[in-house]
């Protein structure tokens, strides 16, 4: 097979869309057609709902979809991480059973990695899975699970060997969330939102075929999931398509998006809402205060530089160059930006910074920023962990001596956690 060229692929996609698109189709039906034709995930293999195209060509197809105004497969949320992981590490049973329903959006997924006792130290998980006849029996507690309360399946990391070193005693499973042994509780945050869940697993059952990869290979597979998450495969950045269309399919997609995005609605506030700083400074007249001007300027220097740093990284990536150090700095930079933004918002708000809800500036949005920003330097890897990663992987500084080698059974860990 010769490598298809971009113009050809774009033309093919347009032609296919012209032939099949109908805005009054049901979302699931349309996505079924995408999954079957391979136009939903063109870079996936032909055997599994794709067309085996290069990633760059797949992006070209996305652009054609966006321009055409056509809805794509379900790309938001954890399900796509599940799809990518199963595509790479699953067997035919997994792919057969899960991939199509992931793409159609019929099943939603959640990720069961973090535990109360293992946050930064994900590999220290103590949720256990023990083989009992044909089933694995799972006991433990997971946390920071987004959308667990309406998920059909969970990507589970559980310990199956307590005598192996900690990274080698973990196994990866697909857990059916709709069973009695799974209890989901909402976890309220300090900003009042409840975006995450705690998941209590009490003798939850997993049939043998739902194990993914070999026993003891869980850590390596979880790393695949996390790598996709870092690359933004959870699709939370949204699509480039401007949703102008009308029709049944758009309404169904909008409803799906609303449900999925619900837990994330405070994320822009968590990031500090830099976009609001200058307008607020102008509207309130506080821009005339030299201390406010300096704080706003400091923030803008930081935020713009961070943005350009991310664009430098992306530009090099698009040019196919090896990644420079810029690529690893985004998360740490974001913490600084968020803190500086919260500081600027506080100075601009003055006494109003004491108010929340309807009484607060911008109907409480400023207050939400102030009480959400502390999450930026924690969620998805604390600043401290980020600095370790940057120092070790980018700068090549030596690792710290490890205190958690040897059988996991003997590694000191949180009591009851």
């Amino acid at each position, binding site marked *: 097979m010769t490598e298809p060229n971009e113009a050809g692929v774009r033309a093919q996609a347009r032609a296919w869309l012209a032939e099949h698109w109908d805005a009054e189709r049901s979302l699931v039906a349309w996505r079924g057609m995408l999954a079957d034709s391979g136009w939903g995930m063109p870079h996936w293999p032909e055997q599994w709902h794709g067309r085996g195209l290069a990633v760059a060509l797949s992006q070209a197809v996305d652009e054609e979809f966006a321009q055409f105004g056509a809805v794509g497969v379900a790309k938001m949320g954890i399900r796509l991480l599940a799809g990518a992981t199963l595509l790479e590490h699953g067997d035919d049973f997994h792919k057969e059973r899960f991939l199509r329903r992931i793409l159609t959006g019929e099943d939603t997924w959640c990720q069961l990695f*973090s535990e*109360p*006792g*293992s*946050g*930064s*130290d994900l590999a*220290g998980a103590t949720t256990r899975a023990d083989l009992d006849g044909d089933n694995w029996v799972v006991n433990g507690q997971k*946390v*920071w699970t987004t959308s667990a309360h309406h998920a059909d399946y969970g990507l589970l990391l559980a310990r199956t060997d307590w005598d192996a070193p900690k990274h080698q005693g973990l196994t990866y499973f697909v857990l059916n969330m709709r069973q009695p042994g799974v209890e989901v509780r909402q*976890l*309220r*945050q*300090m900003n*009042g939102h409840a975006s995450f869940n705690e998941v209590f697993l009490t003798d939850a059952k997993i049939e043998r075929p739902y194990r993914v990869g070999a026993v003891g290979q869980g850590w390596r597979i979880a790393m695949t999931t996390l790598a996709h998450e870092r690359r933004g495969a959870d699709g939370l950045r949204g699509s480039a398509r401007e949703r102008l269309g009308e029709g049944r399919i758009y309404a169904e997609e909008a409803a799906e998006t609303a449900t999925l995005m619900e837990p994330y609605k405070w994320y822009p506030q968590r990031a500090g809402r830099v976009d609001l700083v200058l307008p607020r400074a102008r509207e309130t007249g506080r821009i005339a205060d030299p*201390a*406010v001007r300096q*704080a706003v300027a400091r923030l803008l220097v930081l935020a713009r530089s961070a943005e350009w740093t991310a664009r430098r990284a992306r530009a090099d990536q698009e040019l196919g160059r090896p990644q420079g150090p810029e690529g690893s700095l985004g998360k740490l930079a974001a913490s600084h930006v968020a*803190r500086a933004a919260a500081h600027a918002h*506080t*100075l601009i*708000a*003055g*006494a*109003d*910074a*004491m*108010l*929340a*809800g*309807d*009484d*607060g500036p911008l109907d*409480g949005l400023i*207050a939400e920023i*102030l*009480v959400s920003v*502390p*999450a930026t*330097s*924690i*969620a998805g890897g*604390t*600043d*401290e962990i980020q*600095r*370790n990663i940057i120092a070790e992987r980018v700068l090549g500084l030596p690792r710290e001596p*490890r*205190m*958690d080698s040897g059988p996991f059974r003997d*590694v*000191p*860990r*949180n009591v009851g956690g």
Partner: protein
Amino acid sequence: MPATAFSFTDEQRQFRDVARRFLGDVSPPTAVREWMESASGFDPAVWDRLAKELGFCAIHVPEAYGGQGFSFVELGIALEEMGRALLCAPYFSSAVLATGAIQHGGSEAEKMALLPDLAAGTRRATLAFTEPSGGWDVEQVALTATPVGGGYRLDGEKRFVLDGCTADFIIAVARAPGSRGADGLSLCILPGDAKGIERRPLRSLDPTRKLAHLTFHGARAAPLGEPEGAAAPLKRALAEAAAALANEMVGGAQRMLDSAVDYAKLRMQFGRQIGSFQAIKHKCADMLLEVELAKSAAYRAAAAVAEDDTDAPALASLAKASASEAYLGAAAACIQIHGGIGFTWENDTHLWFKRAKASEALLGDAAYHRELMMRHMQ
């Protein structure tokens, strides 16, 4: 200054112990959570004990006015412990702001009439000073006091009034119609439920301290102190309030440090207590430094007020600037060291974080107080 100016006496240390024990009993986080959700924002039973058993409202009030005649240093100790325990109570509004305004602005007769009740805690007052403009200077006052008979008719608004919905009486700062700047300012006193006042609770970022919006539609008030002579006493009362607030804040900051250190010793990751990692260790060391520096500033400011030092306003601003950054920094670091759990509602850290954030703005932020301090020093 003698060395003793930099240490507490044995009596003061005992007083702190008593206060800490009492507040630890009556204001555990469960109680804070209960009362911060209430409309009034405080437990009347605790208030009674605070006032009667401990005489907290009377600490720095001269004995002639029913007080205990201790100094501002003892007041600072009490506030520090309240800040540490995050006590929900209308103490700062009544015992600090209103009491200060009366002490510095009231006539002898007015002090005799008003202070004993406040000192006994049987009545509570607040100072209505700030307005929707959000300024903390005396110049920003726009509420008008039109002379009527021997009193005033008040028209306008007050905002960010501490415990404004529950205060028995209100001391409002108002200006003569047509006056500007520091001129024409008077203290006016009126019952909290006077006709012509509309009191509305404000939703506050820090639910442990209640704020109100007051609208005055021709409400009648009596004069307090010299008519149109409120600027100077008010500035003094505000400077002292800043010193007081700094002491309250360092108590909260210390609590955050203690909590962070305790957790760092407990929490294991990577087979080690997280407190054995330099990242956490050094963060805690930096917190300690910030908190101790802020304490030194707060103590010095309280001592300066107690000694009627001419530097007191500059030192109060210095202390408020220091405390604002130290408290917020300590609360943020405490969340960070707790990791994800520190961001949950269930964990108590956010209660202090929110108090830190709101206290940063209350009476003016650090940049404002640095500027004030520089004016005093020039």
